[in-house]
């Protein structure tokens, strides 16, 4: 009996000790968020192979769902693609002609590209949701050149941005997350604003100077404001314009993402040679 009591007290002590450690970890997040993120990514890196393996059933389910969806609309899509192909062939010729002309004009103007974009593909191996943030773990990390704040695209448009980087993996905050912010432009209205995640499905457009100029169906692209994100990437369409705010319908589908593209972006700011800089005229000059 005595042994049983001792055993129980040992178990209770273990339980209490574990609760204390868990509380300590919660406090660790509050007081050392950067170290907590580093610890999270170290654990994620360590477990990445197992997570990748466990993602196989989900991948199979995704492919089965996509195959089922595709089978139903295959015939219609085939017909539509044939029509599109005919139109696109015409556009391709126009684009080639314009590209040559564009290159020639840029050469004449000594124009410099505002940014260098390159893409890196990565597989989604884990997703989190459940009402507590919306993020994904992908198979590309610092060793592949991934850095914090890089923009992430799916095949349709902007899907999120990199928030944490490990050696082999990176965590992406999707544009549905409550903490997601992205400077955007409504193309047709020429209005700039900030896309703000809501935690639900439809992000909102905030801080717009003239909301009246924006109509449903207008295209939303990245504005490049601040120089952190590249400009001109497709984000979505304006869904509703209501007194409570403007909601957007993003092109990206975080639920169906299997492969993402991480945009490596370097703002190419022309370096000025101080010696070559124009000298301001002297106030004494005639």
């Amino acid at each position, binding site marked *: 009996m005595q042994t049983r009591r001792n055993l129980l007290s040992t178990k209770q002590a273990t339980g209490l000790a*574990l609760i204390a450690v868990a509380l300590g970890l919660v406090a660790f997040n509050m007081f050392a968020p950067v170290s907590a993120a580093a610890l999270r990514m170290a654990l*994620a890196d360590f477990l990445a192979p197992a997570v990748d393996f*466990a993602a196989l059933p989900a991948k199979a389910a995704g492919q089965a769902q996509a195959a089922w969806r595709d089978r139903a609309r295959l015939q219609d899509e085939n017909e539509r693609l044939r029509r599109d192909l005919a139109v696109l062939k015409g556009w391709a010729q126009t684009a080639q002609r314009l590209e040559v002309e564009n290159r020639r004009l840029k050469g004449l103007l000594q124009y410099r590209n505002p940014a260098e974009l390159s893409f890196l593909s990565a597989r989604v191996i884990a*997703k989190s949701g*459940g*009402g507590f943030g919306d993020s994904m773990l992908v198979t590309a990390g610092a060793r592949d050149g991934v850095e914090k704040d890089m923009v992430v695209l799916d095949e349709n448009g902007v899907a999120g941005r990199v928030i944490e980087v490990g050696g082999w993996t990176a965590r992406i905050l999707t544009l549905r997350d*409550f903490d997601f912010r992205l400077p955007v432009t409504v193309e047709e209205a020429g209005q700039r604003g900030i896309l703000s995640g809501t*935690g639900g499905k439809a992000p909102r457009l905030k801080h717009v100077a003239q909301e009246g100029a924006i109509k449903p169906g207008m295209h939303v692209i990245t504005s490049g404001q601040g120089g952190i994100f590249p400009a001109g990437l497709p984000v979505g369409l304006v869904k509703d314009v209501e007194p409570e705010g403007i909601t957007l319908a993003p092109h990206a589908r975080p*639920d169906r993402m299997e492969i993402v593209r991480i945009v490596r972006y370097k703002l190419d700011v022309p370096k000025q040679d101080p010696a070559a800089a124009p000298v301001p005229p002297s106030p004494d000059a005639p």
Partner: protein
Amino acid sequence: MSGLLSRVDRMPHAVLPLGGGFALLLLALAPWPSPLLHALFDVFPLVFLCAFAMRAPGSFPAYATFLMGLLYDALSGHFLGVTALSWLLADLLLRGRRLFFPGESFGRSWRAFALALFVAGLLQWALFGLLARHPGDLLPFALRLLFGALLFPPMAGLAERLQDGRE
């Protein structure tokens, strides 16, 4: 020889709880193609560890619950310790309760489990809101309760069978 065979026979009963819990944890975080599937798999680890805490506590120690919660936090990008704390609380609540009500009916166990699931979910939701400085979505919380309640009977049955195999 028969002793060795008997030990080999019992090995799955010892390995399955920990290995199964870890496998369910990874499946919970897998990129499922629909939010409903995601919500369903998300609740599996908690139901699994609660079922074992009630029906076969010897097979799944409290530190394993803590580790599972910690790994869930790390892989999902949540605040470290939040899930570990809420799962541990549910585990200890049910583990302690079992000592006072041995041999109770399945209906009562089910209700106790639902209460623990609610307490764990509420704690997780409140702590997340506190740390993130905005409230979490309530719909996934409700879905988790619903799926958890539905998944408990088969999971508890599995835990009991494993416990019988150990004895």
